[in-house]
């Protein structure tokens, strides 16, 4: 899967805010309405909606309106894309550090 640079920027920006990360956490437990998402937060509803717009613009969450209620849900596959960058780099280092373990063990067997 290929990530457009601008898309990636939007995702990182979306996740750079503590309140928005909280909303992501909440949506990780299942879909939620604006009211449900706003409940644990001490902020005005328009601010909550602003954050949700940023999240939706990043592609990390999606919303549907049924009647008068707008429900948000997490797009798990987009989070997976974001993690790929860091995941690949970390995996490379961990493989090298595994070889470091092995090197140290072979250089001088543990007494």
């Amino acid at each position, binding site marked *: 899967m290929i*990530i457009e*640079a601008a898309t*990636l920027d939007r995702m990182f920006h979306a996740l750079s805010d503590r309140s928005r990360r909280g909303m992501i956490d909440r949506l990780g437990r299942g879909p939620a309405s604006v009211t449900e998402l706003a409940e644990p937060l001490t902020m005005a509803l328009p601010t909550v909606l602003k954050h949700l717009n940023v999240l939706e613009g990043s592609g990390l969450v999606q919303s549907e309106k049924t009647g008068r209620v707008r429900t948000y849900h997490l797009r798990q596959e987009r989070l997976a894309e974001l993690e790929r*960058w860091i995941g690949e780099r970390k995996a490379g280092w961990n493989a090298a*550090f595994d070889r*470091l373990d092995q*090197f*140290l*063990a072979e*250089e001088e067997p543990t007494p």
Partner: protein
Amino acid sequence: MTQPSATHTTFTIERQLKAKPERAFRAWANPASKQTWFACHDGWATIEYRLDFRAGGSERNHTADGEGLLHAYDAHYLDVVENARIVYAYEMKLGETRISASLATVTFEPSAVGTRMLFTEQVVFLDGYPDDGLRRQGTEIGLDNFEAFLDREASGTH
């Protein structure tokens, strides 16, 4: 590639090593030791490896992966405190394209097991995740380099 972009992030890896800090540090400082664990991958060909381990020194690890794509790591050491800390800056290129620039900090502390090694990387990923086009283009460049390496080796000037 799309528009130029720069995406910053920081991550930390903690490892417990079964060796005293002196020996763990030496595995980073000694060129032959470092190459053994850092530069040697199964199925990857080393094109060039060198290490001048000191503040102001540099390191190069150029390899070709299984598909012949060049992975070029170039580092500059900024701070070295024996048996305790290493700080260096490095860049990664895939083929001819720079994909990231980083500041890495490694610290060594004595622990019950031997050494608590903390690796922290502050990285800026450049211009989006490498796409298939780049990987293909890189493959060709990588193969050129690999052939040059084989030629040098065959002529005994490597």
